[in-house]
């Protein structure tokens, strides 16, 4: 099961603890974001949730650009966005695949019911 720590991060932001991010933390966020986006690609998000995947890529680009400028606060900010949007793309891909498979089975069940003269 995936563990999300965004509520915790939100709480830290509220307390001001997330105001300054060091390099190691930012790089860790960036690595996790890359993993999430790659995972979304493997889940066929390009087919089933292309707009979310595009946005995750855009956020990842922004994070990497901020990393080039050693702007660790923005690296963390955009990496968090890329990660959560990549996770969203994966979730929507899973939803669409499950719904398509179910619709397929439903069609065959309806067809079989018709052949057997069953009421729908």
């Amino acid at each position, binding site marked *: *099961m*995936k*563990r*999300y720590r*965004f*509520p915790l*991060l*939100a*709480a830290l*932001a*509220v307390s001001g603890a*997330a105001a300054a991010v060091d390099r190691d933390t930012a790089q860790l966020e960036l690595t996790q974001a890359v993993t999430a986006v790659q995972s979304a*690609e*493997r*889940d*066929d998000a*390009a*087919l089933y949730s292309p707009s979310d995947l595009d946005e995750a890529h855009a956020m990842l680009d922004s994070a990497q650009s901020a990393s080039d400028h050693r702007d660790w606060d923005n690296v963390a*900010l955009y990496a*968090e*966005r890329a990660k*959560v*949007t990549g*996770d*969203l793309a994966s*979730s*929507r*891909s*899973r*939803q669409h*695949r*499950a*719904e*398509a*498979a*179910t619709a*397929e*089975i*439903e*069609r*065959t*069940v309806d067809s*079989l*019911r018709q*052949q*057997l003269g*069953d009421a729908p």
Partner: protein
Amino acid sequence: MRTSRKHWLLAAAVALTLAACATVPPGPPPEVARLQSELDRLHSDPRIAGNAGPELANADAAVDVLARNARTLDTRAYTQGVYIADRLVGIAEASALARYAEQRGMQLGAERERLVARETRSTTVITQTPVRVEREVVVHDDSGQLVPRDRAELLAMQNQMPGVESRVDARGLVIRLGDFMFEPGRDALTPPAEQSLDSVARVLAGDSDAAIAVEAYGPDGLAVARAEAVRDYLDARGVDGSRIATRNVAYRDSIASNDRRVEIVIRGDYR
């Protein structure tokens, strides 16, 4: 004099308090109110509430933290909080709906098995009737046009594959496996695909003359791998793989760039 000054100060304090109240609208900011409304919708949807996992709890927690602290956050932190909470709500909805669809798919799969068993029992007598009789007569379709005898044979084959998505067209009997019959982005078959192929193999294993092709659509590497996976699966179930041709339908020929279906074509002879 002193009393009137006191009254003036009191009036000023009341005015300031009222002004302060007027500039801070009651309740959460609109973005947070929208997120709370979205969460209410998810909780009241039985498909989601009944399949809610940790994702919905995470979304609840994120929106709750945001609502309690929205007025004290600076713009950057607030915007980030809204962005993340919004995606967490989306993840909660998609995850729950995926679980709902998967459970419904399992129920329908069991129903399909039950119906297939009934269909098989009810058609046993029909399928035991020699097909040769059909081959020796001219068969007509509803439009009154002549139908090649091999078409009738293909239709008989199709009838022996209940629960399999198939059609008879100009190429022959075409059995379709949608993209979702494979693991995402891979050539591994899913259980529903294996069920369909088991039915196909049962029919083809007893027919050594049928010309079979597996045509896969989509990106080269994936399409070829999926076509070979289907061929190998059939081969392992008694259909000689050496008589199964595999073909990758080029990407440009596909109906759409995201068309990744695989079709098994049992060729017809419509001379």
